[in-house]
């Protein structure tokens, strides 16, 4: 019996109920002939318009990155000057202690801390978009796209949270009822470019793409989204077949965000970054400095480096940075800072000069950093949320494989054109 009717009966019954309700309301509900649109409704006519919705979403995200990038430059210059002054102070100290302070601490931690302005500005922008009610609209707009890839809008909210940090993004998948939808959303979340990856992008885009830096960083976020969508599609067609569930999305009315609310949200997320800089990043750069100082680092890097040769960045310094980047992605920049004994202001130049990187290689490297292995904390979160080691291990290997393939394609195909 069910095989004949199947889904169809379900639809017929739902239609029957709605038919009953609309018939009933014709009798008992009188609405004014021309319904006065609330301001929210008027704004929504444009914002969630079928054709304008997605272009507007992209334009808003692009605007956000321009805002973040342009506005953070003067602040970053100040911090840079501050660390330059510190470096001058310690330059007099000789021996291993001086090297630890100058190359390890100032070079390593300094090159990460300089990204406080763009990260905090990005968090401010995300908080404003959330508090004014736009993020819920973004989820609504993307619902249509998400349905095409076999997910629904509810999966989009964890993805947007992933822009801040993948950990809350992965945890937010708890609101997804369907276990297949949930697992798919967890596995693609690491492709959403988190705040920790921003320092890498800002550093390399800022040096290698100068005027187009904002655009290039924006590209990274879009590449992350596109890869996430493609992988979701692949997962739904292979590992997790089945239909996704339906749901009704609430669109809260637009509100003016309050300064207090925005700053609170920014601080909640931003302090995690500061804490990481003070603990794990500090620890790792000291370790990197120690390995470097004792000469143990180059052999390790040289052993891994050939793997990255097809991607264009087969130098041992790049390999070492990526290796330690597993602990936290900011560490990629911190490690480079220590290796080249340079704080941020001159780090881009040092990389270009000593590694011979071109903009194409820098781009491929950024894409690799975007897509490869989720950081240790994200892997641990996947483990606790899926309650097994199978999925975190799977995530580690498949993301890294994809990162390698995409970076190689970019470098190899790009080389044909740029020469």
């Amino acid at each position, binding site marked *: *019996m069910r095989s004949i009717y199947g889904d169809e009966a379900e639809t017929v019954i739902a239609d029957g109920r709605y038919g009953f309700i609309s018939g009933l309301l014709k009798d008992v509900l009188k609405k004014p002939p021309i319904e006065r649109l609330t301001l929210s409704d008027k704004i929504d006519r444009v914002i969630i318009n079928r054709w304008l919705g997605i272009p507007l979403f992209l334009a808003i995200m692009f605007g956000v990155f321009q805002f973040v990038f342009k506005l953070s430059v003067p602040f970053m210059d100040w911090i840079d000057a501050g660390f330059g002054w510190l470096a001058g102070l310690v330059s007099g100290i000789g021996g291993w202690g001086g090297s630890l302070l100058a190359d390890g601490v100032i070079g390593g931690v300094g090159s990460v801390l300089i990204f406080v302005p763009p990260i905090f500005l990005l968090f401010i922008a995300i908080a404003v978009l959330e508090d004014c009610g736009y993020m819920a609209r973004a989820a609504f707009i993307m619902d249509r796209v998400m349905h095409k890839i076999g997910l629904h809008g509810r999966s989009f909210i964890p993805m947007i949270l992933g822009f801040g940090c993948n950990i809350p993004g992965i945890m937010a998948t708890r609101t997804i009822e369907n276990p297949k939808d949930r697992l798919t959303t967890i596995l693609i979340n690491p492709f959403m470019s988190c705040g920790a990856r921003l320092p890498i992008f800002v550093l390399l885009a800022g040096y290698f793409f100068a005027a187009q830096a904002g655009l290039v960083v924006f590209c990274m976020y879009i590449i992350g989204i596109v890869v996430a969508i493609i992988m979701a599609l692949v997962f739904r067609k292979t590992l997790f077949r089945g239909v996704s569930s339906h749901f009704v999305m609430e669109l809260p009315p637009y509100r003016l965000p309050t300064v207090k609310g925005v700053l609170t949200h920014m601080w909640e997320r931003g302090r995690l970054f500061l804490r990481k800089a003070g603990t794990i990043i500090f620890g790792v750069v000291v370790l990197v400095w120690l390995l470097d100082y004792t000469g143990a680092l180059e052999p390790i890097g040289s052993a891994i480096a050939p793997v990255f040769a097809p991607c264009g960045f087969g130098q041992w310094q790049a390999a070492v940075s990526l290796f330690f980047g597993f602990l936290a992605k900011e560490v990629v920049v911190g490690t480079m800072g220590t290796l080249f004994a340079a704080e941020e202001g001159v780090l881009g130049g040092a990389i270009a000069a000593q590694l011979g990187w071109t903009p194409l290689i820098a781009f491929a490297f950024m894409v690799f950093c975007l897509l490869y292995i989720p950081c240790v904390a994200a892997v641990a979160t996947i483990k606790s949320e899926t309650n097994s080691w199978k999925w975190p291990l799977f995530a580690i290997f498949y993301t890294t494989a994809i990162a390698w393939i995409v970076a190689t394609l970019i470098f190899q195909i790009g080389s044909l054109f740029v020469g």
Partner: protein
Amino acid sequence: MAKEIIVALAGNPNSGKTTVFNNLTGARQHVGNWPGVTVEKKEGSCNYKGYSIKVVDLPGVYSLTAYSPDEVVARNFIVEEKPDAVVDIVDASSLERNLYLAVQLLEMGARLIVALNMMDEADSRNYRIDVEGLSHLLGAPVVPMVANRNRGTEELLEEIIKVAEKEVEVKELVISYGQEVEEEIARLERLISQDGELSSKYSPRWLAVKLLEGDEEIVKKFKDVKAG
């Protein structure tokens, strides 16, 4: 000894369900979990006109399918515990969407009272709602309210007592789903009626509709009983 009445509060998210719950029970609340699932269970109580009224706050849902634990919890409580009255909090400013749950509750044969909340919001949009007509067509009492200004709470309590004491009749709602589906429903109803255990627990028509909707939980129960 006061007579105890058990009332379940149902409603869509954002319909003001929590406010109504607080109005009814004040500070006398107890929060726990529904057995077996991590869905919050809130209970409270109040005394009114010699009755001791226990209020159980069901999770906010749009529908009563088996798609989410919230929906299953809400549905199972009504089917299995058979509360003396079920109050569905309905947002009067968006009736189309909110009545979908009310209709399903009535199809289940729940002893339903529709609490028409946010009447002020509906008024400000110049909606004219014929409360008596709505009550007549649904076959259930309808109480207009503005919960966030604590208006209508007393009227709701009166109605809860009337329904619990069976002074007011709440009819099981029958929606006609068209000839094809109706034939199937009739066939399934006959099958279900033959089974004493099933038909004593569930309304045969509701069960038949749920089976046709392909509701996994109900299909499983049906198979268990058939096999057993």
